[in-house]
C-alpha cells in the first residue's frame, strides 16, 4: 500500500511538474506573434517572407507531425488553377516571366495570426489584381481530434479557389456551425489580409 501511495504521489507530482514546465511565462509565444501581427502589408515579392516569419516558429515545436502542411499540400494541386500561385517561392518570378504583360500579376498577402481558445488561425490570400483567387489557411487549431475536425470543416467551406472567400470576395462569410470560434478567427485574419492588400 505504501508503494501505491508513493506511485500515486509520483504521478501527481510529475504531472504537475510537466505542466508547470510547459506553461512558463509565455514570453516566447508573445514574441512569435508580434512580427506576424505587426507585419506590414506584404505584397507579392515579400509574400513568402512574412509567412515563414509568422508560421515558422509556430509550426516548429509540433514538428513534422503537424498535418497542416499536409492539408494545404493535398488541397493545393487539386483546386488551384494557376500553377504559379501554388509555390510561394517561385511566385515573384514565375508569372512575370512566363505570362503576357496584359495578364494581371498574382500576389499573395498573409493575414496575422489570430488566436482563439483552441489554437491559432492564419490565412493567406492570393489576389489577381484586386480579385481574390485563392485562400489558404496556413494555420488552424488542430490540437485535439475534434478541433482538427472543425478546422477541416471551416477550411473546406472557406478556403480554396472555389471556397466561400473567393465566391464572396470578402470576409463577410457565414459562420460554420459548430465551429464558431475558428470561423470568427478565420474571418479576422482574412479581413486583415484584405485590408493589407488594398
Amino acid at each position, binding site marked *: *500500500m505504501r*508503494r*501505491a501511495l508513493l*506511485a*500515486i504521489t509520483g*504521478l*501527481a507530482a510529475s*504531472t*504537475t511538474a*510537466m*505542466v508547470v*514546465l*510547459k*506553461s*512558463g*511565462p*509565455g*514570453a*516566447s*509565444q508573445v514574441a512569435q506573434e508580434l512580427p506576424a501581427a505587426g507585419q506590414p502589408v506584404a505584397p507579392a515579392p515579400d509574400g513568402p517572407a512574412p509567412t515563414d516569419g509568422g508560421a515558422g516558429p509556430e509550426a516548429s*515545436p*509540433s*514538428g513534422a*507531425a503537424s*498535418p497542416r502542411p499536409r492539408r494545404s499540400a493535398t488541397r493545393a494541386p487539386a483546386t488551384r488553377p494557376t500553377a504559379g500561385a501554388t509555390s510561394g517561392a517561385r511566385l515573384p518570378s514565375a508569372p512575370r516571366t512566363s505570362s503576357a504583360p496584359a495578364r494581371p500579376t498574382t500576389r499573395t498577402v498573409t493575414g496575422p495570426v489570430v488566436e482563439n*481558445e*483552441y489554437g491559432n488561425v492564419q490565412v493567406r490570400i492570393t489576389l489577381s489584381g484586386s480579385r481574390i483567387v485563392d485562400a489558404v489557411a496556413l494555420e488552424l487549431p488542430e*490540437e*485535439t*481530434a*475534434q478541433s*482538427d475536425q472543425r478546422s477541416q470543416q471551416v477550411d473546406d467551406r472557406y478556403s480554396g479557389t472555389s471556397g466561400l472567400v473567393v465566391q464572396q470576395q470578402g470576409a463577410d462569410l457565414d459562420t460554420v456551425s459548430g465551429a464558431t470560434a475558428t470561423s470568427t478567427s478565420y474571418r479576422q485574419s482574412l479581413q486583415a489580409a484584405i485590408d493589407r492588400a488594398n
Partner: protein
Amino acid sequence: MTYPRTHAAGRRAGTTPSRDGGRPAGGVRPQVPPRRGPGGRRVLAALLVLGLLASVLPWWLDTPAGSLRTTAATLTAAGRITGLVAGYLLLVQVLMMSRLPLLERWIGGEQIARWHRDLGATLLVAVLAHAALILVGYADLEDKPILTEAGVLLRDHEDMVSAFAAAGVLVLIGFTSVRAIRRVLPYELWHALHLASYLALLLGFGHQFSNGAQLFRPGPVRTLWIAMYVVVVAALVWGRVVAPLAFNLRHRLRVADVVAESPDTISIYLTGDRLGELDLLGGQFFRWRFLTRGCWWQSHPFSVSAAANDRWLRLTVKVVGAYTRDLRDLDPGTPVWAEGPSGTFTAAHRTGDRALLIAGGSGITPIRAVLEELPPGSALIYRARTPADVLLHRELDWLAQARDVRIWYVIGSRNDPGPRQVLTPDGLRGLVPDVVRRDVYLCGPPGLVAQSLAVLRQAGVPRRQVHLATFEL
C-alpha cells in the same frame, strides 16, 4: 522434541498410506541450482519504467514550452498526461497478468501480484484524474457547465460512450479490490469482475485513437501505441493459451494419490509424462486446475512441496474451505491442468550461500521444497500452533541430516511466550548469530510474515536478502 504421528487422523477412507512421509523419491535430482541474480528482474522493471516515460514523451514533444497559458489549456494538458499514463498502465496491468513464462520466472507470480495491486491503485487514480481533468478543461474552454460538457463529450466525440463505460468498469474493479471490500466479497464475484478488465481494455481502445491529441494522427506515435496493444495481446495468448497448452500436452499430469499429512492438511501426489524434463525449482508454484465435476472451473495457486524429481510432483494443501475440502476426495487418475511453474522463492534466487528459513503453519510447504535445493548449512525456524500441526516432520528430519539443516520447532500461537521470544532481533541472533549475512526465506500466515519482516529489519537484514512466498493481496 518428538511429536505424535498425526497422519491417520484426517485421511480419507480408501487411500493408500503415505509414501512414508514422502521420502525423497528415487530420482536423485535435487542439487543446488546456480544463482540467477536480480539482473533479469531489474531489466524488466527498467523496461517498464522506460515505457512509461516513452508514453508521455509524445505529449512533451508536441507541447511547445510556454504554450499552456490558460487554465483550460493547463487542465487539458494534465488530463492528456494522465490519459497517456493510464493507457500505458492499463496495458502493463494486463501484461503482468498474462502469465508469460518470462515474467512468471523472472519477476515471480508473488511479486507480480504485489506490483499489480500497487499499480492498480495508481491506474485507478490516473483514469479518474484523466476523465476529470479533460472534462473540466473542456468545460472551461467552451465555457459550459461540467454536466453539459459531459453530454457534449458523450454525444459529439467518437467512442466516448465506450470510454466512459471502460472507466466505469475500471472503477468497479478498483473498488472491489480494496482489501476491506474484497474480503467480504465471494472470490468468484471478485474474479468475474476482474475478468471484465479485458472489456475495459477493449472499450477504452477506440477513444484513444479518435480523440487522443497525441494519437489521432497517423504517424509513428500512433503506430507504436497500437504495437503495444499487439504485444500485450500476443503475450496474453502466449501466456494464457499457448504455453499452458504445450505444457499440459507434454506432461499430462494426473492425480496419483491423496494423503493426509495432519488432521486438516493433505498432500496430493501427481504423476505425468516426462517429469524429469520439468523446469521446476523447489519453492515455485503452479496454478492448479483439477478436472473434476466440481473443481474444473477454479484455478488455485499452490506451491510444490518437494523438489522436482522424475517420478512425482506433490502439493500440500491446508483444508480451509469448500474447494479444498473437495480436493480430499480427488480420485487417482483425475487429470490436472497446471499453469506454471512460477515464482522466485527458490534456491536459485539466493544472494549468498547460507539461508535462514522461517515457516509458519502450512507455509512450510514451499520451504520444505526450497530446503532440498539450498546449499548445506541452512537454518529453519518452524512455528506451528500445536505439535499436531507440524507438517512433513519426517522429511524435515531427513533434510536435517542429509543437508545439514538446523531446525527449531516453535510451538504455540504467535503471542505465546516461546514464539514471541524467538521472533525478536535478539532471539533470532541467539539462534542464528550470522542472520544478517543470510538469505531469509519467509512463508506463513500474514501476521507472522509482517512480524518477521519487522524483526528482520530491526536485526539489520538487508531487504534484498529477504524472500517472500506470500501473495499478500
